[in-house]
């Protein structure tokens, strides 16, 4: 009769076990995006929203809510202070928000390390690309250039601006940075018009133009993607350890290029479910197919790795942070 007892015991425990496993059946999960519709963060979020339900227990509906404003500080504040830690709200925002926290931007009401991190859905490699018909074919030639090379940018805070700025101020490249373009697409048009000679930016956004042979990549930051491994890295040319630290600080968030978080205090089992779901979704061939169509690369970085990088960023000594703030302002 012992097996009968065992069966009853098992049946008794089963509902408890089932209840312990988070289940989202019949519920709606909201992805809060700190940007307006149409941009990269929004597109990634919508792609994930489409495929995530298949990998979450209970197959909930996943919708996207745009909450732009304050360069996504508003969305981050919302995730930190308002959203409930019940696993029904996840958020994605500007990857440079840790920098905003570090440089004490006014209005920051979050602590990056206290979010329940799901992880990052992509890496981003930042590169500088210049027009193909310029006589500089590689980084060395660019360094030795006698004439100014004009680089277009959108404004401080964007990698279109910050990356070449550090190349110019810390490595001494002869660059002239012209900022104020409304978007990186406008800068590409300006390149075609020969109004500017190049731009910096994410490899993903520059790839169609590199393939079209309009521009060529010259130098990259620390993070890399397929096909860019051979490019020289900006940090390796840094003249002083401090300069190197500043460049490293600028590019640190790039590994967490598409950050996804749950509100602080979310139970560990829910966080685990999401981490597994994200990893599975990103590997899912259906997702990969759609991502390829949209010409972006997804790559899962775990929450633990993200937190580790963040702690490193946020523990930089004050003098480095002060020096950094002289060059880099948090912005779009």
């Amino acid at each position, binding site marked *: 009769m012992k097996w009968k007892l065992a069966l009853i015991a098992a049946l008794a425990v089963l509902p408890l076990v089932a209840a312990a496993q988070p289940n989202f059946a019949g519920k709606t999960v909201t992805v809060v995006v700190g940007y*307006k*519709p*149409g*941009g990269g963060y*929004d*597109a990634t979020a*919508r792609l994930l*929203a*489409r495929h995530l339900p298949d990998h979450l227990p209970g197959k909930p509906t996943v919708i996207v*809510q*745009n*909450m*732009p*404003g*304050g*360069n996504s*500080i*508003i969305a981050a*504040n919302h995730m930190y202070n308002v959203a409930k830690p019940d696993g029904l709200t996840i958020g994605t925002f500007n990857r440079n928000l840790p920098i905003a926290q570090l440089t004490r931007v*006014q*209005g920051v009401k979050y602590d990056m390390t206290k979010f329940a991190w799901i992880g990052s859905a992509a890496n981003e490699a930042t590169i500088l690309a210049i027009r193909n018909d310029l006589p500089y074919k590689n980084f060395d030639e660019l360094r030795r250039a006698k004439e100014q090379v*004009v680089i*277009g940018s*959108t*404004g*401080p*805070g964007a990698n279109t601006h910050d990356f070449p700025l550090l190349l110019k101020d810390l490595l001494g490249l002869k660059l*002239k940075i*012209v*900022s*104020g*373009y*409304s*978007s990186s*697409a*406008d800068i*590409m*048009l*300006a390149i*075609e*018009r020969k*109004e*500017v000679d190049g731009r910096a930016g994410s490899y993903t956004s520059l790839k*169609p133009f590199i393939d*079209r042979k309009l521009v060529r990549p010259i130098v990259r930051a620390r993070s890399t993607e397929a096909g860019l491994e051979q490019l020289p890295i900006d940090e390796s040319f840094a003249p002083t350890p401090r300069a190197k630290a500043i460049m490293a600080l600028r590019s640190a968030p790039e590994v967490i290029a598409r950050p996804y978080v749950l509100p602080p205090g979310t139970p560990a089992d829910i966080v685990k479910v999401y981490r597994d779901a994200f990893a599975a979704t990103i590997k899912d061939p259906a997702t990969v197919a*759609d991502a390829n*169509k*949209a*010409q972006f690369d997804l790559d899962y970085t775990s929450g633990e790795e993200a937190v580790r990088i963040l702690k490193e960023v946020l523990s930089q000594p004050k003098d480095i942070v002060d020096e950094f703030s002289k060059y880099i*302002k*948090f*912005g*779009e």
Partner: protein
Amino acid sequence: MLEALLEGLLLVLQWKPFAFMLAGIGIGFWVGLLPGIGGATTLALMLPFIYNMQPVEAFAFLLGMHSVVATTGDVTSILFGVPGEATTAAIILDGHAMAKKGEAGRALGAALASSLVGALIGAAALALAIPIVRPLVLTFGSPELFMLAIVGLAFIASLSAQGARGMVRGFLAGGLGLFLAMVGQDPQAGIARFTLDTLYLWQGLDLVPVLVGLFAIPEIIDLVVRGTSIAGDAPVGRVSRGALEGVKDVFRHFWLTIRCSLIGTFIGITPGLGGAVAQWMAYGHATQSARTPEERKGFGQGDVRGVIGPGAACNSKEGGALIPTIAFGVPGSTSMAILRGGFFLLGLVPGPDMLTKHLPLTFSLVWTIVLANVITVAACFLLLNRLTALTAVQGHLLVPVILVLVFIGSYTSNSSYADIVVTIVFGAVGYFMVVAGWPRAPLVLGLVLGKIAENYLYISVARYDAGWLTRPVVLVLLAIAVGVILYPAIQAWRARRRHA
């Protein structure tokens, strides 16, 4: 090229893309009608659905939706005085005034007909421009774009009342708009300007809540004060005859319609100016067609030309805006940016390929715009009686509904209550401006063009030092700007001479 043109047409006429186009039209119809809910937000919402469609089907759907938003947006603007879209605010000035006189049918007829003409011209421009599109767009560099913004600002003179004091008020409104455009983080030094220490203002004032507040709130207040229906005591009249009258008006002022369509197409083609400008420039141009000061005063009271101008420009700019999006991958507006996302989703890269390898697909886009507009206009004409009957409905039934839609429209662009506050604040500003007799149009122009003017000026100076001032296109545009500013004065002078 002719074969590609025909092939494009055949692509759209297959039953699946056609069905999707109708679905898109159905959705776009309501999106345009609802104030504040932008074509852009809905485009973004619809994007996931097109993952599994073929390119022709997907674009028939997206473009079908997008093309009609401007047309039905005009309907809301005319009937209720509430901007259906950010791009259909200008038509309120005369269109709604006509509705209040009981001439809603005529206004709608004129708006629909001019929209159709505008859309056709925009589509034709898109098709014809394909061979010359690249050199055309490449001629317009930052200096030229700066000058274009100045030309746009010059229209403030046309939008103001006559006389020195009228001009002062017009430029006061315009200056205020320019000043408000400075709010936000500046792209040169990264300073947060005029943000009152709030995060919300960091990225500047959003156009939709401001527009909705500026135009809708005074109208709502007026409705409550009057206590009657929109048409008030004026007999709504035989609507269908009115509509026919409106259509005839479009042909009576045919050259104005064509010119405003061209203005719209041109603004659409130049990336970086944004769509909201076209309607105001067209309206300003329409007011210039008044031959006497008395006629000029008629604008804002219900002159049908004030409906035709913006109506045509709004739709023609859509065809124009597709040009830089398709040929260069540079979107001319937010909706175009999302459409461009659609391109990528379908595995297409906007650029020279679209004009060569995928030419039939590009032409199918042109045909979609044409067909979608024809169908929508036809549908609107059929529904005209129902629509105009709304102007006879008691005000107190409409007020809560309009108020709800206005608040929702304002909230949903950024999911922020602050937007509603902005709407209310600008509602107050708009109300006081109307009481004081100040024109609101220049404020909108200033707000829309301010950042563009500043950024392109800095880029021009940084890149070319002073040399940009002597570029040929820049000089031509400068002359046009001066001409536009002086036009009202010249008109007044000539009128006085004639009376002397």
